[in-house]
């Protein structure tokens, strides 16, 4: 295994003009082709696009922990991530709040930022849920905290292994004056690009709000009350879920849509309550329903993934839109049986991995 050093500062131009019928393709041109793949593989992805929870978190005297469930769809190449949270405090009396070890924060200041560097335990492309917590201490009455942004990005790689997982292309096999054989370079490039379901796949939308609140000295851990409670028997739009722009990658030349995956973080309030969550694309009218069965989902849990058809980019248009119109996905829920509620506390839409 060779460790390839990709250039993650800029791409190279692919030299089509030098790849002509009847003439050999030079090693330096093969090098540039390999460099583009190494660039894409090493850049790191935004695995949680920045989002603002559509809620405010009430404060009074005490220590708080709010817990968000985040769905991560990692890249195999990524070995470190950065998680950011940004939040603000408001109150009527100008008290003091301490947050995440930042010391005393004047509540009138704009925001507090928190940054966490995470080294992954093992490389993977398998999606998983993790908890993200915000801890703070409040020392006044009648205040509230609003989270302005949660965002998680993968750090670019300085070196890539030239294997089937990390997809680094070892350009040293492209030697001037030597023919390029299938097994010496071309196969790696073909494999990296043939049906790409890994490099550069997108997380299109992620939303979460606290599903668990702990407050001290009040001893209770409030669990399961987060998210919007839906009792309607017809589909209603869930908080924060009314039409967010979604545009997937274009895989094939003639593609206008792409099938992506969607999951919901939800629960039914009792074992006799059932319901559904669905995702609706404004451009494609596609609705994929996730059934919530109270007998197994009275605790918050991420659902299995369902297919959702959304627009993909049109690379010939100025903003990449199909037909100059934004495809907006809405998240809706309803109760189908029982007397309780359906709580929806988060969702994610992403391009499937390998």
């Amino acid at each position, binding site marked *: 295994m060779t460790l390839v050093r990709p250039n993650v500062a800029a791409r190279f131009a692919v030299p089509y003009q030098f790849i002509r019928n009847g003439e050999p393709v030079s090693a330096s041109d093969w090098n540039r082709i390999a460099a583009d*793949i190494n660039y894409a593989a090493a850049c790191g992805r935004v695995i949680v696009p920045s989002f603002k929870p559509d809620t405010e978190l009430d404060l009074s005297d005490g220590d708080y922990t709010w817990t968000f469930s985040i769905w991560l769809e990692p890249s195999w190449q990524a070995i470190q991530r950065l998680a950011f949270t940004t939040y603000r405090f408001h109150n009527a009396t100008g008290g003091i709040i301490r947050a995440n070890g930042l010391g005393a924060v004047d509540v009138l200041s*704009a925001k507090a930022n928190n940054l966490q560097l995470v*080294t992954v335990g093992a490389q993977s492309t398998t999606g998983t849920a993790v908890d993200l917590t915000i801890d703070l201490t409040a020392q006044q009455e009648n205040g509230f905290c609003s989270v302005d942004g949660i965002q998680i990005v993968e750090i670019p790689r300085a070196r890539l292994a030239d294997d089937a997982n990390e997809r680094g292309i070892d350009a040293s096999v492209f030697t001037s004056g030597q023919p390029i054989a299938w097994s010496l370079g071309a196969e790696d490039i073909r494999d990296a690009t043939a049906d790409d379901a890994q490099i550069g796949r997108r997380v299109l939308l992620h939303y979460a709000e606290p599903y668990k609140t702990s407050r001290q000295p009040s001893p209770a851990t409030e669990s399961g009350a987060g998210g919007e409670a839906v009792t309607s028997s017809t589909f209603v739009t869930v908080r924060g879920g009314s039409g967010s722009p979604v545009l997937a*990658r274009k895989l094939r030349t003639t593609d206008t849509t792409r099938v992506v995956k969607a999951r919901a973080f939800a629960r039914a309030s009792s074992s006799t309550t059932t319901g559904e969550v669905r995702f609706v694309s404004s451009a494609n009218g596609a609705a994929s329903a996730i059934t919530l069965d109270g007998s197994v989902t009275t605790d918050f849990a991420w659902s299995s993934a369902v297919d959702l058809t959304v627009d993909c980019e049109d690379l010939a248009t*100025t903003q990449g839109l199909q037909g100059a119109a934004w495809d907006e996905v809405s998240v809706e829920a309803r109760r189908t049986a029982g007397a309780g509620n359906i709580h929806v506390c988060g969702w994610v839409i992403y391009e499937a991995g390998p």
Partner: protein
Amino acid sequence: MSTSLFEGLIRSEAAQWDAYAPADTAFARGLASNAAHLADSSAQVVANWRADDFPISRDEDAALNDLGVAARPYAIWSSQLFHHRMRPDGTSYRIRVRVRAATVNGNAAVIRVIVRGSSGVVPNAGEINALTYSFSSSTPAWLTGGTGGDGSGNIYLRSGSEALTDRATLISLSPGDTTTVRYTASIVQIWGVPTGGGTGDRIRIYGVHAAEYIGT
């Protein structure tokens, strides 16, 4: 500016090739196009949210003039740093942006959506990395008619120099040696200011969409 020949991946069957068969020119062009499309379409979504019930407002931070309105634009919302992809021509991938906003009382306001490198300055209206929207409606809506940027609703960096930084990272999980990697760190921000001159004018941000795009 799609850099591929076909704006999509071309499939090929691995089984049709012998180990030491030479790669012909047509196959090389296909692989070159695939590599370019892979890099083009690796663009990422930077921000995507909508908050109909609890929008963002920074009115408590505004530098108020004697009319009680903000005298100059102030930052309302910001993404955090992301690794901004760079095109072969040295400019950044475009950022396709969309902002959902309203005023509280129907008076005029201006919003500026910007992208800047970690060491870059806040751009003025009309620059390629700033889109400016003038609006007044008190009904939340995705804003249209932005001016500036690339003229098509996108913003970008003229070069990566203002975003480039070296960041410590691991070479691999095993054995875990450290090194540095070039990191083109950018942020997307929303700045705004009420311009109607009314006391109590406020801007509310109800949604932001920002995504990298190779551009046309």
